[in-house]
């Protein structure tokens, strides 16, 4: 009897998980197709670019500056053990452009804007505002979700680019200003070590993370449960799921992109 119960529980877990995956994929495809169909309502997209992109830029710049600074301190310390502290610049730049820029930008945007997107859509659901949209023959997927998804996809690489530039500046200030490295060495080593493929690799990652951000934060808000507790749970799940997804997808993307661009 006990075996049957645990088998039933396992079975229902598999069914529930598969259904949830299916629903979220249908949601994503509906959102993408809604974004491609007219009418386009560009003001909604600009509004979301402002919310998700512009309003996140200060915190991204701040995090980028100090990440670059820390990388310079740690890089110089490690590389000096091998007499290679001239390579502090490339260490900072490559770490930021290939890995830390996209990942930290995504995590920060998920924490700042993702939670806000989920909470906003969740509150609209529990207060019948989404039902009101549908009753007025306005598709909530097109009106609410598509602009947020597209804004995430566009804003994330731009924020990532800013993170990288400010991060390299932070590394430069510490390495040249405080640790006494030559400015010429710092910059020229970056120039010779960093290729366009590294930049592309980072931007591709950031774009995919933007998609993950928009998809999960909108989906969790749209399917949130009842009451304040439902919104609370959806917001927490949104941030945790999107953050974990970014880190998992990052590993696979890094593996694939490294192979593709190494050829």
């Amino acid at each position, binding site marked *: 009897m006990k075996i049957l119960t645990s088998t039933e529980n396992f079975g229902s877990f598999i069914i529930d998980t598969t259904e949830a995956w299916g629903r979220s994929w249908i949601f994503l495809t509906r959102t993408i197709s809604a974004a491609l169909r007219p009418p386009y309502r560009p003001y909604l997209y600009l509004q979301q670019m402002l919310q998700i992109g512009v309003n996140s830029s200060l915190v991204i710049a701040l995090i980028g500056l100090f990440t670059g600074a820390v990388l310079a301190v740690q890089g110089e310390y490690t590389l000096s053990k091998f007499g290679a502290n001239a390579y502090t610049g490339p260490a900072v730049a490559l770490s930021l452009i290939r890995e830390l820029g996209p990942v930290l930008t995504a995590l920060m945007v998920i924490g700042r804007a993702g939670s806000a997107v989920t909470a906003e859509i969740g509150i609209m659901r529990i207060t019948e*505002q989404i039902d009101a949209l549908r*009753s007025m*023959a306005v598709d909530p997927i097109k009106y609410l979700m598509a602009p947020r998804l597209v804004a995430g996809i566009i804003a994330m690489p731009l924020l990532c680019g800013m993170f990288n530039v400010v991060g390299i500046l932070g590394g430069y200030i510490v390495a040249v200003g405080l640790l006494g490295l030559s400015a010429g060495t710092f910059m020229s080593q970056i120039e010779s070590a960093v290729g366009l493929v590294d930049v592309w690799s980072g931007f591709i990652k950031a774009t995919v993370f933007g998609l993950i951000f928009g998809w999960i934060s909108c989906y969790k808000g749209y399917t949130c449960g009842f009451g304040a507790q439902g919104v609370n749970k959806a917001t927490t799940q949104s941030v945790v799921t999107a953050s974990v997804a970014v880190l998992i997808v990052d590993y696979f993307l890094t593996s694939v992109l490294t192979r593709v661009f190494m050829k």
Partner: protein
Amino acid sequence: MISVRNVHKRFGSQVVLNGVSIDIEPGKTTAVVGPSGVGKSVLLKLIMGIMTPERGEIYIGGDNITSARSERARNEIRESLGVLFQSAALFDSLTIYENIAFSLRERLRLRPSRAHRRVLEMADALSLLPYLKNYPEQVSIGIRKRVGMARALITKPKVLLVDEPNTGLDPLDGQEVYDLINACKNQWGFTGLVISHELPEVFQVSDRVAMILGGEIIIEGTPADLIASPNPAVQQFLNGRTDGPIKIQ
């Protein structure tokens, strides 16, 4: 105008509607009444096409919303609907002006000058002109209901659906909503469906009344038919008694 035919709806093992049928003639208003939790609001959402029944069909002006395959097809049918929600469901990030103008801008895609004229006309008719620049949370629930009514009627719908018109309102504001429904019906003329548990107040806006209990319509007729009904459940509900066949959940 609205025809609900043998509609069944369940959530898991709980049967909410079990073969409900109602017909509402053009220009008439029917109130669907019953205790809380009997599926009145579910019926409204089925009519709006927001939920789908397990069985049965719902026609709005001859179009079957239950068999519409896509959201686009449902939207075409929804264009004849206006809905006043229980809590008004105004968009809290938009001003009252923007809430009223919403359908004109997003659905009918009217030119701003034309939309502006219509919003001002509607706001004037419903005494909302002083509040147009406010956000919904800055005004009372009574005014929010009026804004909800303005938003529902701005596109001149053929059907008005009203969910619990005076929930959360004091008796004066509640009466004002009923007066508003009657005034709007006289001015714009629509087929109405009002969901309510407030008897006998809802009779003043109803040509006919249907009472749901146990997932079924137990009586349908004029308000006078309901008052004269010998059905003990109807009498218990009408008189607000706790003893009788309706068990308080």
